[in-house]
């Protein structure tokens, strides 16, 4: 049997360490001055099933934002490592997350992706639950007799649910560390992101841009913290900026590529990473330079924090979510070769509405499904997926900047903005989790 026949498995097949078709520890090679990843991590169905078990079912995954369920009765649905859940605001004002699955015969309770309901009623046999999951009614209940125990028929809560700065995360692993412990140094970066609001509150816009692409989820993960591709993949957008006559912005783009510029790419512990630029986006989102806005931030947070807050960052919280300047980007793997991404524009609370509207327009310009930016990235993911079908050339190379990266006391590896330090962080964590045995049962 050839190698490709050996690992050509049926998607969704239960995976275990025993029937690994090839050694997992050979897929990511972390060597002096050289870092490589096996191309099969983007194509192999068996590895995909293992990723779901060992990474996605054990990680804190972003499931929604508190502003989406402001009022008691508000709910929205989400997918947690392929399991359908309902996120709701209970009468008690608390946030609840339960599986979207009737305890009777397993039908989904919510069809809409968001709405307002104090009760969820199963359409099949009319079992009724409060929106916190408590069973409150069953049709023709007398048929169950007097000995039937309903105490374990409340909707099953998601094992772990915690929020940080309005971002709601859930985890299928009951033994997972607390969210903030998991976030570690990433929490500081989330603080800077949320404090772009003078009230410290971000909220999300009502609509969601969704895009799908026929490629592996990790291409999106790698690219959001990739500072090497901008001038090439986004040449079209750079030309649009040139056409707009913005010479100063062209200089920023050039300066960014010089050593010692005020931009860097960082790999954090636990697979997180970021790309940061003190001078902002490529000729967009200029609101950050407005005096009135800056004054409101200084008033709220103090002048010492202004630069930290206004530094533009793409922050990855491994494995499911990015925080970008304009949006929250949620990654949902469908199969080894199919991914859905939600980009959810944010609103900065406590500032002039006109700025938020302007941010929406800039978001559409660079990030939307008809944009002049993200669409070119997606085309590259698809080129990636085409290329990795060639399995004879085995490796993808992520060595850029290994020699010059600096390791900080808190474990951050800091590289030049075009270095692959964040991608190495992704694959170190990927490898650690993939090698760490079975996921939760």
């Amino acid at each position: 049997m050839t190698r490709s026949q050996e690992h050509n498995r049926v998607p969704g097949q239960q995976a275990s360490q025993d029937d690994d078709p090839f050694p997992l520890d050979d897929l990511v090679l972390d060597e002096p001055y050289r870092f490589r990843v096996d191309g099969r991590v983007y194509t192999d169905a068996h590895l995909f099933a293992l990723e779901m078990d060992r990474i996605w079912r054990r990680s804190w995954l972003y499931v929604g934002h508190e502003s989406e369920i402001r009022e008691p009765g508000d709910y929205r649905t989400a997918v947690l490592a392929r399991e359908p859940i309902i996120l709701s605001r209970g009468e008690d004002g608390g946030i609840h997350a339960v599986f979207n699955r009737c305890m009777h015969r397993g039908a989904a309770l919510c069809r809409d992706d968001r709405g307002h309901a104090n009760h969820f009623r199963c359409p099949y046999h009319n079992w009724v639950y409060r929106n916190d999951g408590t069973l409150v009614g069953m049709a023709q209940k007398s048929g169950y007799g007097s000995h039937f125990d309903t105490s374990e028929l409340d909707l099953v809560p998601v094992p772990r649910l915690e929020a940080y700065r309005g971002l709601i995360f859930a985890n299928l692993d009951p033994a997972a560390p607390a969210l903030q412990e998991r976030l570690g140094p990433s929490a500081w970066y989330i603080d800077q992101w949320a404090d772009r609001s003078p009230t410290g509150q971000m909220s999300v816009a009502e609509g969601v841009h969704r895009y799908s692409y026929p490629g592996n989820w990790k291409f999106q993960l790698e690219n959001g913290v990739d500072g090497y591709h901008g001038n090439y993949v986004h040449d079209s957008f750079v030309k649009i900026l040139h056409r707009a006559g913005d010479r100063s912005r062209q200089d920023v783009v050039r300066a960014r590529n010089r050593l010692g510029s005020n931009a860097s790419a960082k790999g954090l512990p636990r697979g997180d990473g970021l790309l940061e630029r003190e001078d902002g986006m490529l000729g967009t989102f200029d609101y950050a330079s407005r005096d009135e806005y800056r004054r409101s931030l200084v008033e709220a947070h103090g002048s010492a924090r202004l630069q930290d807050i206004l530094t533009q960052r793409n922050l990855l919280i491994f494995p499911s979510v990015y925080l970008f300047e304009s949006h929250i980007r949620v990654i949902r793997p469908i199969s080894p070769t199919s991914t859905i991404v939600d980009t959810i524009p944010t609103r900065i609370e406590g500032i002039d509405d006109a700025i938020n509207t302007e941010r929406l327009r800039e978001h559409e310009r660079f990030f939307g499904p008809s944009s002049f930016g993200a669409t070119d990235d997606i085309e590259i993911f698809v080129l990636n997926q085409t290329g990795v079908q060639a399995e004879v050339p085995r490796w993808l190379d992520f060595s850029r900047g290994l020699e010059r990266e600096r390791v900080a006391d808190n474990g951050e590896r800091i590289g030049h903005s075009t270095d692959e330090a964040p991608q190495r962080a992704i694959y170190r964590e990927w490898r650690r989790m993939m090698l760490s045995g079975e996921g939760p049962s």
Partner: protein
Amino acid sequence: MISDGASGAALSTERAEAVLFEEAARLDARAFDAWLELFTDDAIYWLPMGVEDPAREPSLIFDDRARMEERVFRLMDTAAHAQLPPSRTQHDITNVRVVETTADWARVACHLVVHEVRIGDPSQVGLGDVRSFPGRCEYVLRHGAEGQWLIAEKTVRLLARELPQYNLTFIV
């Protein structure tokens, strides 16, 4: 008021169809500069999503004239990866109705299906599939200085507007 076009000033269905069919022909010929000429200087080209409020939600596209020109520039004068190879399109327009018209203004509704394919090496991921995009359009047309009808607003409500989109990089 609905006009049958007999007055000669208000927009007839035949005249409305001629405008829309001409637009479709220019788009399908990739004559994007000529496409722009069909629009007023204050035109809006809009693909809304759910709540149809551009201040509260992102649109798929919400272009003013400047953004439309940017879009055309990108297609004509830059090597945008998402359009290499370029989309081949066919805009099918049916159910044209003049909803409202005066001598210098008209609202026109129609159905649209855009069929799109990118050929290149059709064995590759992402190429070779024919995709279809059904939607309902609403146009606001205005009489230009030389008596021609120009497009002041083009709104396309795609049937699948809230669903995941895989790169809509052609002009709908």
